[in-house]
């Protein structure tokens, strides 16, 4: 007789693909590494420390929350770590640590865990954290340092941060800040002012390519998003720039790459079908340009993604794939 005591009965299918949640999140973290390296080069070691603090805070908040509500701890899926890194990446390097920690709390507890955690939240946690910080401490959140200057590693308040402030390229274009526009090349490499993770378009493109290659994300959202911004900035040049120049600045500044590859693609807060993702991307693009051109602040990526996050359910509803074998009439409508 054979020993069947270990036999498990489950429903089909009985084989599964290799990928799992953790490996996907791991891929995202890997894809963010190039940007982390460039930022560290540009802004110094404080970048690493900021990222570490943010990740640690996110993991701790998630653990505490799970403890309180009596759920199994979920930090193993690494989604909180991704949130942590991305939150740090959308903050200026000079942000006091305590503010960053508050932001992490907002991200993980308010925007994610209260709704049931991974996959249940409707709004991008990292960006919600950023929006909270921006509205609460706008000064701290818009104090940029010039590339190459080193902010104090451990200082925790604005005053003691010993760095030269600079303006972001977009702020200069918009005219809300003084300064010379950096060259396109230096923007590609990341030698300009801005949030920690958004400065180097090249590093972000490498990360995005990695995600595409690993099939973690599909090209639909980033392509639609970047394409829309490109077309609009090309057609309607900003701040006295030439058409093409305006487009290039529009694409490579203001965290558009970060947003398009890493944040608009966040699974929980974007549509599930490719058609929906295209609509979502276009919406993000339109809103980004609208906010950049007409809004109260020069930078529109964060808010445009947040705004589109609120429409995901509707988009999903109206971009549902037509089922196989649907009657012809339904086909046309769908």
């Amino acid at each position, binding site marked *: 007789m054979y020993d069947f005591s270990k036999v498990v009965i489950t429903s089909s299918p009985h084989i599964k693909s290799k990928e799992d949640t953790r490996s996907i999140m791991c891929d995202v973290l890997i894809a963010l590494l190039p940007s982390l390296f460039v930022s560290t080069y540009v802004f110094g070691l404080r970048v690493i420390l900021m990222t570490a603090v943010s990740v640690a805070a996110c993991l701790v908040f998630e653990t505490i929350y799970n403890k309180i509500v009596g759920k199994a701890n979920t930090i193993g899926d690494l989604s909180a770590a991704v949130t942590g890194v991305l939150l740090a990446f959308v903050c200026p390097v000079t942000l006091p640590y305590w503010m960053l920690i508050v932001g992490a709390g907002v991200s993980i507890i*308010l925007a994610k865990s209260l709704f049931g955690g991974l996959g249940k939240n409707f709004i991008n946690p990292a960006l919600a954290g950023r929006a909270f910080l921006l509205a609460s401490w706008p000064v701290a959140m818009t104090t940029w340092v010039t590339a190459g200057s080193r902010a104090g590693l451990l200082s925790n308040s604005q005053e003691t941060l010993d760095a030269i402030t600079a303006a972001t390229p977009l702020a200069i274009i918009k005219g809300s800040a003084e300064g010379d526009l950096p060259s396109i090349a230096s923007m590609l490499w990341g030698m300009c002012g801005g949030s920690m993770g958004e400065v180097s378009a090249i590093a972000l493109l490498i990360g995005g390519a990695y995600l595409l290659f690993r099939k973690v994300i599909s090209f639909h959202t980033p392509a639609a998003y970047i394409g829309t911004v490109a077309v609009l900035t090309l057609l309607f040049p900003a701040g006295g720039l030439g058409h093409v120049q305006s487009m290039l600045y529009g694409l490579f500044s203001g965290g558009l790459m970060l947003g398009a590859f890493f944040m608009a693609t966040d699974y929980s807060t974007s549509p599930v079908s490719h058609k929906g993702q295209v609509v979502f991307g276009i919406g993000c693009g339109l809103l980004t340009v609208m906010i950049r051109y007409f809004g109260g602040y020069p930078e529109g990526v*964060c808010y445009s993604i947040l*705004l589109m996050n609120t429409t995901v359910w509707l988009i999903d509803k109206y971009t549902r794939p037509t089922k196989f074998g649907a009657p012809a009439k339904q086909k046309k409508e769908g």
Partner: protein
Amino acid sequence: MTSILSISLGAILINNFILSQFLGCCPFFGVSKKIDTAFGMGMAVTFVMGLASAVTWLINTFVLMPLGLGFMQTVAFILVIATLVQFIEMFLMKSMPALYQALGIFLPLITTNCAVLGVALQNVQKGYNFLESIVYGVTGGLGFMLAIVLFASIRERLDASAECPKCFEGVPIALISASLMAMAFLGFSGMKIW
């Protein structure tokens, strides 16, 4: 033309009645469990806000102002609105039952909707002319509709998948969602298009 455009954009996005002015919160939370009903409520509010703007503007301009009765705006306006709403409700119920089913059932809620009286008073405060008042009323209503439909879609999603702690279920999590939504709508603040 530009003023109409800027009024519209302002009312729909920038100074959204719900998300930045807090007018009409009760129906916003009360009638936003399903997208369909939220849409119906949005339509009804838009209709009443437009109509109320027109009527109150007329009353204000041709009756109250000439007689120096500015202090009676609140009373006069609300009386007009309440009667109007009740009248429309009865009218719809009898004459257009289909429309009544879609809109009419929300009408009683609208009498006590801050947005309606709010828009009437704001029209006066901002010194809008007749056309501008109507535009402000209608677009304010559209802004309300935008907010409530989006909000309803979020609540449908919460209903379908969220797992919040027991004490946050229902209104609290809805409020938190509204808070996050308002945060997103901050993106429109300070916007100038004209």
